[in-house]
């Protein structure tokens, strides 16, 4: 693991600005328990005891009431984001850019690749087309033990383009994406680290738009907007396209507009190198290193910003099976972040009470479908005469569960100025919602029981690209390095 001290030449925040603390030697991320089976057992035992003493029907009524309150809070939160986005997001998109060319700190772009032969050429082509001063930009692509032609392709690119540096990790190096990125971090000295995934093709201006926010020394990380580029590949991809529109144009935008608490994502995002090194790099013990880093940046007293005009184009999953794998990883990692960071978050001196509440709600997002499933179970039980009516029932459950997300989704379509036929694509979210209940429930149980889980990369299709690729000739196996 890297030491906490930054090397000369990296940009430290000026005095008076909170600086991420120096990490100790060793792995600073290695002390959090993987599962909490005893806590899960305590939940079950507690519920059983209360049900025995006060009656099952009563306790089910109380649980249903509590769930209604939780859903009501999230309903208001979703609606507030939708209102904020409907009010301002389009104007933000239309506003003129300021200072795109005048601030060019040194930037290192990192991309981790594992068996990405279908998309790596498009990604490298897009990276090479980034509009940034060549002497201020370093491109590092990590071949993370690929067993397909990814490594050979990257080598061929590196021969053709001197700007590209390729790092080969041996198979089984561990750490997943975080491990690959941490290894690459050793290679480069720059002020800003920018991360893309292998299936991403950034817009040429994305880099300038991301780094402009680091003028403010309190900014530790900046998130850009990911746009789905293969919506035509399958109905699932088209659904994910709408999901991303809403996620970035409404949800992420609303978090920034209302609470200044956007999340750092896993790709198309930038982080100040001094902050990153101070935090000990990316956490290899989580499968959502982005949420993990978001929390650590916030608790270090720095801020995350979101730029909806810093765009890159990524691939959506094209089948329900891939959707399952991807969202399961997100749910598993996100839920673990909640378990790991909620208590320290509550004690953080850098966040106001409202910000702590919002961050808690953000961390609990992947618990809400689980609770929705529970709410539906209670509804069915009540239909069979089991359980009292909810003690709190302001709005119908269906409205609480669906209207908020649907409002977000429709505002996303509206701001994205998508043609009107797309409204019917919202129907695709009904099965996706049902799938999410199952995914998050499974992830929660697995996570609490501590079932082993490692990084599962998302499969690519490579069918659609936004750049014209002219790949170099790949040397046959055994020739060249």
């Amino acid at each position, binding site marked *: 693991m890297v030491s906490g001290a930054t090397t000369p030449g990296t940009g430290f925040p000026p005095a008076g600005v*909170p600086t991420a603390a120096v990490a100790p030697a060793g792995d*600073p991320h*290695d002390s959090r328990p993987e599962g909490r089976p005893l806590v899960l057992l305590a939940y079950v035992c507690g519920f059983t005891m209360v049900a025995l003493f006060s009656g099952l029907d009563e306790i089910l009524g109380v649980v249903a009431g509590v769930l209604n309150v939780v859903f009501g809070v999230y309903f208001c939160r979703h609606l507030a984001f939708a209102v904020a986005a*409907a*009010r301002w997001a389009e104007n933000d998109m239309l506003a003129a850019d300021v200072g795109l060319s005048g601030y060019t700190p040194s930037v290192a772009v990192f991309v981790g690749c594992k068996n990405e032969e279908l998309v790596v050429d498009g990604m490298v082509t897009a990276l090479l087309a980034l509009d940034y001063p060549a002497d201020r930009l370093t491109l590092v692509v990590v071949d993370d033990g690929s067993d397909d032609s990814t490594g050979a392709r990257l080598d061929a690119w590196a021969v053709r383009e001197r700007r590209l540096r390729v790092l080969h990790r041996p198979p089984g190096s561990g750490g997943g994406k975080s491990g690959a990125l941490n290894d690459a971090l050793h290679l480069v000295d720059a002020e800003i680290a920018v991360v893309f995934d292998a299936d991403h093709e950034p817009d040429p201006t994305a880099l300038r738009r991301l780094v402009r926010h680091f003028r403010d020394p309190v900014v530790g990380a900046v998130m850009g907007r990911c746009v789905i580029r293969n919506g*035509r590949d399958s109905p699932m991809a088209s659904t994910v396209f709408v999901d991303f529109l809403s996620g970035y144009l409404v949800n992420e935008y609303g978090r920034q507009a209302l609470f200044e608490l956007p999340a750092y994502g896993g790709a198309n995002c930038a982080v100040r190198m001094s902050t990153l090194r101070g935090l000990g790099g990316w956490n290899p013990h989580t499968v959502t290193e982005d949420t993990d880093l978001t929390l650590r940046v916030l608790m270090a007293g720095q801020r995350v910003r979101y730029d909806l*005009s810093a765009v890159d184009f990524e691939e959506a999953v094209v089948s329900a099976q891939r959707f399952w794998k991807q969202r399961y990883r997100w749910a598993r990692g996100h839920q673990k972040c909640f378990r790991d960071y909620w208590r320290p978050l509550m004690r953080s001196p850098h966040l106001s009470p409202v910000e702590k509440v919002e961050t808690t709600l953000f961390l609990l997002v992947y618990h809400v479908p689980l609770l929705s499933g529970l709410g539906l179970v209670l509804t069915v039980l009540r239909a069979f005469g089991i359980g009292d009516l909810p003690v709190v029932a302001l709005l119908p459950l269906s409205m609480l569960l669906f*209207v908020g997300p649907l409002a977000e989704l429709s*505002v996303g379509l509206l701001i994205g*100025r998508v043609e009107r036929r797309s409204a019917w694509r919202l129907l695709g979210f009904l099965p996706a919602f049902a799938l999410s209940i199952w995914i998050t429930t499974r992830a929660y149980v697995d996570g609490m029981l501590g079932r082993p889980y490692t990084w599962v990369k998302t499969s690519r299709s490579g069918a659609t690209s936004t750049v014209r690729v002219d790949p170099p000739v790949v040397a046959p196996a055994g020739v060249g390095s």
Partner: protein
Amino acid sequence: MTVGAAVLLGGSPYRRARRPLRSGRRLVPVLLDLLLAVVICAVGFRYGAGFLQVHEARWVAHVLDLVGVDSVSWSLERHILVFRPDGEVILAEVTESCSSILSVLGLTALTAVVLRGRRQHAVAGLVVAVAALLVLNHLRLAASTVAGLVWGTPALVLFHDWVGTVWNLAATLGGFLLMVCITLPTAERAEQDVAGRHTARRPDSWARPGLGYRPADDDPRAPSRRLNLTGLVYRYVLPDRVARWMGARREAERIDYRIGHLPSAERAARVRALAGDGLGAHAASLVAVATYDDDPAVLDALAESIAARQWEPVTNHRVAALRLWARGWLLQHPEREPASGARPDEREPPTQRLWPPADRPVPRPPVPVPPRSRPRARPDDPGRPMPSSLPQPRPPAADGPAVLVTGAGGPAGVAVVRRLVALGHRVVAGDADVAAAGGALAHTAVVLPRGDHPRFVEALLGVCAVYGVDALVSTVAEELPHLAAGAARLAAAGIATWLPDAAAVDGCCDKAAFARAMAAAGVPHPATATSADEVAGVPGPWVVKPVAGRGSRGVRLLDERAPVVQALREDDGLIAQTRLTGREFTADALVDRNGGLRVVVPRWREETKAGISVKGRTFASEAVTEVVAAALAAVGLTGPANVQGFVADDGTATVVEINPRFSGGLPLTLAAGADVVSAYLAGVRGAPLPELSFRPGVAMSRYFAETYSSADGSPVADPCAPVAVTA
């Protein structure tokens, strides 16, 4: 406490004081909107629930009565009385949850707080959705009533509570989707389609980041024109005047990215025109120009227009934003401050960067125009002697109509530009390449789209209007069909052209057609195979080349028949010819509009590089002149022509191809005394062509010459230019 967190918590040397929520000000209006939603629901429920309960019960009974079910009554308010055949009377109450009031209020509140930005579209969506909801809920109530009538109370309850609940949920969802559907923009006005592809056809520099991806493999599709209700209403229902007024209003509100598709000269003119209508009238369009355009000339035009209209009341925030922007722009560029609010100096070219948008604008210094007293050079004036080979300082241009030369980056274009400049014409040099060398040699350089671009002629018209061009000289054969198609528009704009017949151009550019024409006219031409099957009839060795091509591109010399056959099999776009031996010649010719051959200047191609003659010598040959004349007559070409061929050892001449344009070796023809450029321009402008002759034996040896410019487009001194010495 985990280690990482503990380090972070304890390690920070700086403890930030708790701050008030910085986004609080933004939170307030959002909370007010949420409150508005609550108020809509509460007030609507208070005053609307009873109304709907009463009327839904009444309407359901009426509907059932209409379809022949007369054993249902609404005489009891908010109830539906069902009289069953067995005497049972079911008293079914229409409660708030049976009514559609909750769904109606929910959709109304959503429209009010999140969709209202779409104004009339949102209202239309809400109206349609509410109507659909009412209809569906009536169906639900009617079906429940019929179930009760037929099967009794349990059936009514079962249907209403279970099937009806799901029905209600589906109806609400359907109503919501219908509302969103109508609120969203139509395909013609959307930025992206259902798959996320960019459909607005915005120019790159005007694109909103991330609104639609542009797949690299997508062919740009022409926008389809679909029949729509609005169009029909405008055309057939509304009175003409009303339709025109509403159409103009709609047009004013349309997305303004279409301005971005115009060449920059036209953009500048459009900006002035829009501003002339009033900043408030087209504020959105002008803000879009200020936001997206990066051409200094267009932005200058905008700033000047805004500066000239400071009397105009600031009727909305966009006008204020425009004023602020113009202030910033003029502060940044004080030299551009308009002197007296008058129109900008027309002599200053509004821009040189027209199409496509370059990475950075390349402004060039204005070309000084001499006083009007200077006599204008006559087109047929032989002018001063030809300048030396070095690029020389440009002589002052005549104050009169200019000549637009296209293809200014090619050797022919450069030669034409230099000759016309030397003759004192004001020359505008156009090319698709912003760095075309001819641009630096002319008085004004403009970037034009390629000839096959759909807006090529529009771009020409814009350039000609801005720079006062009255004559067009094209040096690019590929442009000729497109120019011929737009000849009427050019003529209407007062731009003189002399374009050969389209069939003649096709006959020259298509080598297979050319071979057929030569064979038909009996003009000596190498044996030609246009398909693999015909190769057997063509003796070798062979030259394989594209049917359409220039400058030796894609030409292969083959000695074996098999690869020739294979090449033609693999690519339909190739032909094979017998490779000629002998001495290669080129002849520059000029044919008048009546088909009369004015001059033929044959020259040996003693050395070529990349298809361009770099060493040559003029010669006189009756045989060559005859075969050139016959070939030109066979294709029916007029204007400048460049005929290439071979003279065999026995003195017979064979024509290989004809280019319907000036040649790259044109300077040699000019140096030999045949001023085909000047004569052609005279013909373009409708004057009689002068007699031309040439001197054989004039040799040419070419070398590279350079033009230099700095980053801002200003010229950089030639380091090898002679230094002026004064005594």
